[in-house]
């Protein structure tokens, strides 16, 4: 009974052997890129701020005529999310194909 329970155990942090292990690794890598780049940048922006309104090195630099931080948040981050989604799909597609070829029905 206990063995059956473990056999059907689904847990993001304790992925089952086989397909799910690789799938979870890809998910966690994407989530890391998602959180660090977005929230991490805002934290750095705050850390390097020289005034209460947040003025600092990033607000003085420019890129494509935008204040650098504004370009990063308003334009790059949505693009970054699209890139992350594309990478996720490519890796999951490959991962799925690899396991399909092996006929690795790890759940059986």
């Amino acid at each position, binding site marked *: 009974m206990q063995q059956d329970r473990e056999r059907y*155990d689904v847990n993001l942090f304790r992925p089952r052997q086989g397909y799910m292990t690789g799938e979870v690794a890809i*998910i966690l890598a*994407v989530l890391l890129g998602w959180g660090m780049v*977005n929230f991490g940048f805002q934290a750095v922006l705050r850390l390097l701020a020289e005034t209460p309104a947040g003025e600092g090195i990033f607000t003085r630099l420019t890129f494509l005529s935008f204040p650098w*931080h504004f370009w990063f948040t*308003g334009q790059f*981050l*949505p693009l970054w999310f699209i890139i992350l989604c594309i990478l996720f799909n490519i890796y999951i597609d490959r991962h799925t194909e690899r396991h399909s070829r092996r006929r690795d029905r790890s*759940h059986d």
Partner: protein
Amino acid sequence: MTDAGFNLIPLLIVAATLGSFIVSGLRARSREMSDYGFGGRYIGRVGGGAAIASNWMSAASFLGMGGLLYLQGYYALAYVIGWTGGYVLLLVLMAGQIRRFGKYTAPDFVGARYDSPAARLISAGISITISVIYCTAQFKGIGMLFAWLFGTDYRSGLLLGGAVAVGYVILSGVLGVARNQQLQYTVLIVSFILPLMALAYKLGYFWMLPQFGYGVAIQDLKREFGINFAAPFASGTLFQWVALCFTLMVGTAGLPHVLSRFYVVPNIRDARWSLVWGLFFIALIYWSAPAYAVFARLLEARAGMVPPPAATTGMADIVVIRTAVMGGLPAWMIGILAAGATSAAFFTVAGLLITGAASLSHDIYYRIINPRASEVTKMALAKGAVVVLSAVVLFIALHPPGLIAEITAVAFALAGNTIFPAFLLGIWWGRANRYGAIAGMLTGVVVTFATPLFGGVVPAVADIFPLTSSALFGAPLVVAVMIAVSLLTPPPSEEMRRFLAEQVHGHME
């Protein structure tokens, strides 16, 4: 309002646009089965992406986001980031798994996963509440648009626009109008970008890609007029920014009408790639929205107008249209912009009212009150529910509790604090059970409305769970409650755990 008097040409363009959707929907009806809610023929990955984007675009994206950016500058980019970054969460944590689970509405998923009528009832109630809040924001947009079109006050505009919107929904339902969401998205993107290109051209900025060419305008605002549009923390702290952004992200991944989109795609791989296209189409509009806000500030400054804060808040939700008027664009082009905004609000209202009504009729009446109800009875009840929900929304929208994007954010907070954790653990933790789900969702409801409920008594509550941004602490709290209660109560059936392990997390696509 921005422009006193009747705006005939824009009004005619709005009417012609809405009319053309009904006509094209009726023509399409002869070629395919009409759908009352979700469904329709397969349209490919790009088409699926356009459908996702069209389904997503609302008055909040079209009007509300520009309004908040106009008021708050950089701080309001949290909406841009929240509403795009949420799709990453949706893709990596839910899209494929929901498709494999095979239940496409939030109450259906919750009811089946947790094998509990009570959990289904709670999630149905939450879904309907989300629909009502979201619709209230749309009605505010519709009210302001109609007030501008007819040159009336907000109240008259709301009553008139609300009646037309509900009439549109009912007429579409009665005639069985099929929704061509690629056409809808095309209309939305063209109507948003074309006037922006014209504005950039008139103001002397790079007009061919105006969404990437307004950087100079930000610098001009600061250099010539001392307006620092890009100051990062002028309108809110780092915590407030992160809390708002995170709430909008988890809300996006938990919004019932977004989760339901994966039903129309035939396989998981196409569902995933459609989502990427959808995010790209959404980003096209979100890259552009800040430009309207910057141009609005610039036009005001050049005209020597410095409106008082109360006035700016009052007109923020229609600042996109107002910018086009101030910029001296021709009436037909302003009409196209207004038609896009009206269409976005009408499509969203139609989707939400039909989903909410279907939930009332199917998940509450049929599943819980009268399981022997006939299809005719269910359909009649759904149609009645559309009218009742509309009346509720109209009543709330008479005294809108905030700006369009702010009202919408509360719906996101509710979704992020309730549906998102129920789906997340439902998919990724086999041990999550009905008691955990019920306790978690009820906690989520309390957390979402903690500020109006307890903020007056315990001021710290308003700091920890701000009304529009409660999910930063709320969603993890709900997840913790779900885990604790699940562990203290019996596990779900072995059948469900096996289904999760073999079907939902099996690898074969």
